[in-house]
């Protein structure tokens, strides 16, 4: 049983599982926030896809005799050609757009010469398998090689010297084109010597369209994710209700040399001389502020209380802000993170009145997993801490034209070596 807006996705998933005739019945969208009476009306009403009574669909699914095609399912091979049939540049641009192989902006066409040049950016052979990606947990994994990653890197306009960063992102197993209805994007933080080697920019406009490496690495991550995982097509392999502008590109290097604190990758156990990419999954909310001024604690508490509580905060702080916190005694990131974790509060009632907390965290709470079990036991009016210190991250970047910070939803999903892909 599904809600009707997921029909295409349900059919595609059943086909990929070799059961294209899987019996499926549909109720109207949404189920969330509907009363028991509403849901009973769904059950007693019509299947909006078949236009037959919903329960008739359910009972037929259980009782109707199987046919020959049901007894062996459907097996078949799928192949992806190495090259596209030759055509004019205009026609190929149109073909790539029509096939949803682009981000709807023009791409650099991946000619054999351009892909060959991109492959010069790594020591790894073109036919080496890099990894597997999928749009969401219940879809099938697609596999891909170094050459296929190079094709997408070319399309994004990246240069060969960026290729190890792009391969590292591709190898992470984290898709930058999640199909989640939450419209997640990824935000990538780059640390280590590679930042300077490829002229990434951590100053003025670090999160804007002002640096070739920052911009095209992020775009490459998006394009490779959608094309190497089997697509990111609305109503099929993409179901994000609102979408996310950060999905175009969201990569920044940490301003390690201007930060008073330990760099992110060293916090995560890497050496300062390692080049590393950290992938944050989120982009759902953004809060911003200045400071730290006299009332910074009130401002920060309000911001932390205003988050979507299932998506953890990633702070990007201008060096002016970071140094200001040092002046207040926060001489390590860990001290400020501990303050944030102690002050990210919400009533238990509000915490649990969230569909994704119900969906993702409640089963863990019921199973006794901490800290969710304690949060579930709390009195509804009790203020509870909503994040563990390990779930909050801080990165220093920015041009020091203003003491500005942003808090972006971003759960750290992977920290991957770039050096492994040189």
């Amino acid at each position, binding site marked *: *049983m599904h809600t009707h807006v997921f029909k295409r996705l349900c059919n595609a998933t059943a086909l990929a599982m070799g059961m294209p005739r899987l019996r499926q019945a549909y109720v109207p969208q949404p189920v969330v926030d509907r009363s028991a009476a509403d849901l009973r009306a769904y059950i007693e009403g019509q299947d909006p896809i078949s236009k037959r009574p919903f329960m008739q669909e359910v009972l037929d699914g259980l009782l109707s005799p199987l046919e020959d095609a049901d007894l062996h399912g459907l*097996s078949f091979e799928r192949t992806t050609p190495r*090259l596209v049939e030759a055509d004019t540049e205009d026609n*190929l641009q149109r073909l*790539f757009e029509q096939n949803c192989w682009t981000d709807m902006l023009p791409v650099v066409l991946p*000619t054999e010469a351009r892909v060959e040049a991109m492959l010069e950016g790594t020591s790894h052979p073109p036919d080496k398998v890099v990894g597997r990606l999928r749009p969401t947990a219940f879809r099938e994994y697609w596999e891909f090689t170094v050459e296929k990653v190079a*094709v997408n890197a070319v399309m994004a306009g990246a240069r060969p010297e960026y290729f190890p960063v792009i391969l590292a992102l591709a190898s992470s197993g984290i898709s930058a084109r999640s199909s989640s209805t939450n419209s997640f994007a990824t935000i990538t933080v780059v640390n280590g010597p590679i930042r300077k080697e490829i002229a990434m920019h951590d100053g003025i406009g670090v999160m804007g369209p002002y640096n070739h490496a920052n911009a095209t690495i992020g775009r490459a991550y998006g394009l490779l994710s959608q*094309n*190497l995982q089997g697509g990111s097509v609305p109503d099929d392999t993409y179901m994000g209700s609102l979408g996310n502008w950060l999905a175009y590109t969201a990569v920044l290097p940490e301003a390690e040399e201007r930060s008073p604190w330990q760099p992110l990758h060293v916090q995560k156990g890497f050496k300062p001389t390692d080049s590393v990419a950290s992938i944050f999954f989120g982009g759902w909310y953004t809060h911003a502020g200045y400071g730290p001024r006299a009332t910074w604690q009130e401002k920060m508490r309000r911001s932390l209380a205003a988050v979507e509580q299932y998506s953890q905060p990633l702070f990007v702080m201008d060096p002016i802000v970071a140094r200001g916190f040092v002046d207040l005694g926060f001489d390590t990131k860990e001290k400020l993170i501990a303050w944030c974790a102690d002050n990210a509060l919400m009533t238990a009632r509000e915490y649990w009145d969230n569909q994704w907390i119900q969906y993702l965290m409640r089963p863990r709470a019921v199973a006794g997993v901490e800290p969710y079990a304690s949060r579930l036991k709390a009195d509804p009016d009790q203020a509870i801490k909503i994040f563990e210190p390990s779930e909050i991250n801080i990165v220093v970047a920015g041009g020091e034209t203003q003491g500005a910070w942003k808090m972006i939803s971003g759960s750290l999903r992977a920290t991957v070596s770039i050096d492994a892909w040189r």
Partner: protein
Amino acid sequence: MLTVHDPRGYPPKVVGKRLAPRLSSLDGKTVYLVDCLFDNTDVFMEQLRQWFAQHLPAVNTRIARPKETWSDDAQMRAAIAADGDAAILGVGL
């Protein structure tokens, strides 16, 4: 004229699976209603259980839930295989 690469990855082979045998009748049978843990699905499943109780009282229904979201709970699956005759999974957002 330009020759360019295809940017797509490699999909796995699709291996056909047969559907589970169907029942000739639900009378006296045990049907599991598997709550996939989306928000409010518990309310939907309870309404479905009540519908069966009201309209098909000869059917035994049991609501089951996996331990974790998006997980194939082997223990739940084994319990359904052991004493269930059919299962209905649902429902989305």
